[in-house]
Every structure is written in structure tokens, then in C-alpha cells.
């Protein structure tokens, strides 16, 4: 119960931000950060809880973005219907890639490679097929009405993405408490042992992949609605595969708040660097790469893990004199 209160508190604190500032810069920063946190939370379900490190979550992000854009622009479908279709399409792509990869028994390096390859195939296909706008991309028509999932005010966009992140946080927490989550973590820790105890590892990993893909697709769909533009390099580009795995790993892999914390830290670092040196291409990603290496080296459980360690250390230190006093 305590953790649901924590989720509510964090979400409520973030929801108060538009009341404190109307700065478009701040809100824009937070919208993008939360969008990455959502994509990262998707990755975290499969990678963090399931131990299956995908290097190609762009496959789901791009699918989410393209499906809603194509439905709206080419078929005049309502944007909210498009949103639901995006999530469903992401789940289907996840089921296909996961089904093939897990059926073939691919783990570790092989799984990373095959997910990367699928994302690249989709990127190349999207950059040549007419329905995705080929090299030009797709522009969604500006229509600032709530029923077309577009809002005049950035604050509303912010609250929408915050609500989506809140749902993803609750999903992760429910997963932790569920039997399915326990199976998934068992598979992460030792797949063979889990199977020996009767866990259907294939089904568990596939389920996690589908859920993971659906969440990341929702982030992709939000991207399309927010920027009203999508092309192959954005949707299926390696940048989003990297950011989706970077955020939970930096924040705390396999934890409820890891992706959110990681996204805030990573994006703040990126923006901070831009403020200092100006917008030089490559700088933010350079920092992300360095932070990734440093975090794995010095805090392999991420910032959440590091904070927990420090907390435990001080609590143990505080209890020690008390215990000595009681014994003495």
C-alpha cells in the first residue's frame, strides 16, 4: 500500500508544476522528459523485471507514432482511436518480435542483436515505403481540440503525459505484486531454475514483451501528437532505443521509479550541458554515453539502488550505537 501512496505523492507533486510556472521552456522540458520516462518504463518491464535487454525499443516507439499518424492523415480516423490502435499495434509488433526471438531461445547478446536488427529493418522500410511518407515523413494536421488529442496549452499536454506515466508506474507496481511479476523476476534471476520449478519462461517473457512494447508505443504515439510530425529517423532511429534503456538503467533497473528518475536526471544533464556550451550536436548524447558507463561502473543498481544503499548505511550506523547501548 505504501508504494501506491508514494506513486500518488510523486504524481501529485509533478502535477503541481503547471500551477507554479507557465514557462513554456520548463513545461516543454518536462513533457519531453516524461515521454522518455514512459518509453523507458516500457523498456523497464521487459529489461528491468525480465532481464531481457532490448537494444531496439525504437521498433515499438516508431510503430506507435506511425500507426496513429497514418490512421489520422491517410484514413481520417479520430486521434484517440488512433491512440488505442497505436498501443495495440505496438503490442502486436512486440508479440511478433518476442515470439520469434524467444521461440528461437535467443538470450543476452543474441536478443540485443535481433531486437536491434528488427528496429533497423523497420527504419529502412519506413524510409522507403510510400504509406509512411518515405523520406519526407508524415505531418499531422494542426487541429487544437481535445477530441483530436491536441491542446492549445502545453500544461494540458503535460498533464496527459503525466497521467500516462502514472498509469505506467502503477502497472510496474502491480507487476511487482503479482504472480506474473514473480515469475518474470525468477526468469531474470535464473531462467533454467525458474523453468525447473514449472514457470513457462517463454510465455512469461512474451507477456512482458507485449506489455513493454505497448507502453513504449504509447510514448511514440504521444510523440506524434505533441510534435505533429514523424519520420523514420525519429520514429525508428537508434536514439530512442538508447534513451529507452538509458533511463531505467540510470535511475534503477527493475524498480518502479527508476525510469522516471533516470529520465529527469538524464534530460536535466543534457539540457544543462546545452545551456553551458550552446546547442552543439552530439554533446547531450556524449554525456548520456559517459553517464551510462559511469553508472554501471559505480552504481550498477542505478540511482535508486545507490540511494537505498546510502539510506541503509546510515540506518545501520544509527542503529549500531543504540544496539550497543541496549546490550551494554
Amino acid at each position: 500500500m505504501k508504494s501506491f501512496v508514494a506513486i500518488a505523492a510523486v504524481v501529485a507533486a509533478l502535477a503541481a508544476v503547471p500551477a507554479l510556472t507557465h514557462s513554456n521552456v520548463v513545461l516543454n522540458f518536462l513533457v519531453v522528459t516524461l515521454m522518455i520516462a514512459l518509453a523507458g518504463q516500457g523498456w523497464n518491464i521487459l529489461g528491468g523485471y525480465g532481464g531481457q535487454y532490448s537494444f531496439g525499443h525504437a521498433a515499438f516507439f516508431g510503430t506507435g507514432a506511425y500507426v496513429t499518424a497514418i490512421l489520422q492523415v491517410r484514413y481520417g480516423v479520430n486521434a484517440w482511436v488512433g491512440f488505442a490502435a497505436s498501443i495495440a499495434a505496438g503490442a502486436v509488433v512486440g508479440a511478433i518480435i518476442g515470439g520469434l526471438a524467444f521461440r528461437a531461445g535467443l538470450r543476452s547478446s543474441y536478443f540485443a542483436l535481433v531486437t536491434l536488427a528488427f528496429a533497423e529493418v523497420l527504419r529502412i522500410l519506413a524510409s522507403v515505403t510510400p504509406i509512411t511518407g518515405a523520406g519526407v515523413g508524415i505531418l499531422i494536421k494542426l487541429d487544437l481540440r481535445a477530441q483530436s488529442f491536441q491542446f492549445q496549452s502545453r500544461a494540458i499536454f503535460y498533464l496527459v503525459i503525466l497521467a500516462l506515466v502514472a498509469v505506467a508506474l502503477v502497472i510496474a507496481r502491480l507487476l511487482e505484486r503479482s504472480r506474473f511479476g514473480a515469475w518474470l523476476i525468477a526468469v531474470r534471476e535464473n531462467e533454467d531454475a525458474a523453468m525447473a520449478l514449472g514457470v513457462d519462461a517463454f510465455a512469461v517473457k512474451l507477456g512482458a514483451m507485449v506489455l513493454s512494447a505497448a507502453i513504449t508505443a504509447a510514448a511514440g504515439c504521444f510523440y506524434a501528437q505533441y510534435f505533429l510530425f514523424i519520420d523514420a529517423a525519429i520514429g525508428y532511429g537508434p536514439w530512442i532505443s538508447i534513451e529507452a534503456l538509458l533511463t531505467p538503467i540510470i535511475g534503477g533497473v527493475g524498480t518502479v521509479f527508476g525510469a522516471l528518475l533516470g529520465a529527469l536526471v538524464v534530460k536535466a544533464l543534457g539540457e544543462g550541458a546545452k545551456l553551458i556550451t550552446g546547442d552543439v550536436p552530439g554533446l547531450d548524447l556524449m554525456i548520456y554515453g559517459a553517464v551510462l558507463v559511469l553508472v554501471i561502473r559505480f552504481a550498477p543498481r542505478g540511482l535508486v539502488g545507490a540511494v537505498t544503499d546510502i539510506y541503509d548505511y546510515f540506518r545501520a550506523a544509527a542503529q549500531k550505537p543504540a544496539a550497543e547501548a541496549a546490550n551494554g
Partner: protein
Amino acid sequence: MPSPLILLSAVLNGLMTGAVYALVALGLTLIYGVLHIINFAHGALLSAALFAAFFAWQKLGLDPYIAAFVLAPVFFALGYALQRFIIGPASHGDDRNMLLVTLGLAVLIENALLYEFHADTRTVELAYGFRSIDLGFTFLAVSRVISFVAVFAVALVLWLIMSRTDTGKAIRAVAREKLGAELSGIDVAHIYAVTFGLGTACVAIAACLLIPNYYVNPSAGNAFVLIAFTIVVLGGMGSVPGALIGGLVIGVVESLGGFFFGESLGQVGIFLIFIAVLLVRPRGLFGANA
């Protein structure tokens, strides 16, 4: 149906390109064979080596073929240091961490190059850059023939290192049975780093062979790496002859695919082969039975 001579020339060109692919793949497969991880920083290191070869030519007037003899040891040292002081300690003994660290290094190196040199594309102009051999039905660029021969020379040297030296024996021992090797007094961390260094040296030589008729920019190496992944998977991860044959096969497939279906769809063909091999026969065509 196009004339067989045109096809033959496409095949020959494919073999020339494929040889360089094979060299990049050789480095990758060597690292995989011993460390059992895919080095995702391979492409970024190739880009870095291309820049090094470019500046060696531009600033020092060093011919790329001579620069290869300088850059190979330099990149060996770089690879050794990366594994010994960054990747190894950061992995905490978990393969997944090692994957992530190489990915982090890839992002770091590629974007450091982008930050420093911007996205401009540079090329080297050599007096013999456009010289070619007339075969009667087609022309072959001299530089590509040189690189074809050089790749096999490098493969031979690697084979000699692996089969004739104590270090080579230690590398093979670690690849076969890490714990056993450690128990017989082999410094596994050192051998890992040596292997990583050898793989990185392969990349440096590949860069020097590529640069006479290729361009340099911060993401130039990436184009090769996914292809190298494909070759390594096709040839069987860790298999050296597999990497060589796989490289030539992929070079020809790409050349013919590009010829029949156009550049970008030719690339999709490579990825589809890649995915198919991974799913159907992940140990590759030449890999040992799992």
C-alpha cells in the same frame, strides 16, 4: 537478364567490399569468441580509426597503407586499455553489463567525434585513388585489390598469433574454458584485454584500407557494424574462417542485391538474412554445434 559479364563484375566488386567487411567482422568475432559479448562499440571505434587515418594523411602526410602499421598498435593499446580499465571493471562479471558498457562507449565515442568534428563528410585524395586495373570486361580499383590482399594477410597474421604464440594459446584456452585457464595460472583479465586489443587493431587496419575510397564522418563506422554483426552471426559467433567466408558472401549478396533491387532494399536483404539466421540457426553456418 543482364549479361553474365556485368554480373561477374558485380560479384568481383562484392568480393572486394566483402573482404573489408570480413576484417571488421574478424575483430568482432574474435572478441565474441573469447569474451562472449557483442562489442557494440566496434562501429564507433571504426569511425574513430577512420578519423585517425584521415588526420594521419592530412596533418602528417602519411599514406593510409603506411598509417596502418602505426594505427594498428595504437588501436591495439586503446582496445587493451578500454577492456582492462573500463569495460572489465564495469561489468561486475555480468554479460548484460558488458553489453551496456560497450553500448555506452559507442554512444560516447560517436558523439565525441560529432562534437569535435561535426557531421561534415571528409575524404582523402590520393594520387592512385582512381587508378584501376582493366580486366577486359570491367575495371577494378587498385586500392580495392590491395585491401582484398591485405585482409587475407591480416587474417594469416592473426592465425599465426593464435596458433604459434603462447598468448594465442592462452587466448584459445580462455575461450574454451575460462575457469580452467584461470586455474592454470592464466591472467584472464589480461587475456580479455589482449583479445579486445586485437579486435580493435583489426578495425584500425580496416579503416586504413577503407579510407582511400570511402568517406569519413562520425557515424561512418555504423554502416559496417550491422553488416559485421550479420557476418559474425552468419559465420558462427567466434569462428574466424566463418567471419572470412561470411564477409565475402555478404559482400556479394549486397552487391547483387543493390544491383537488382536498389541500394536501400539491398540493405534490408542483409538484415533479413541476419534475422533469419539468428532465428533459425543462431550458431551460424560454420559455428560449432551448441
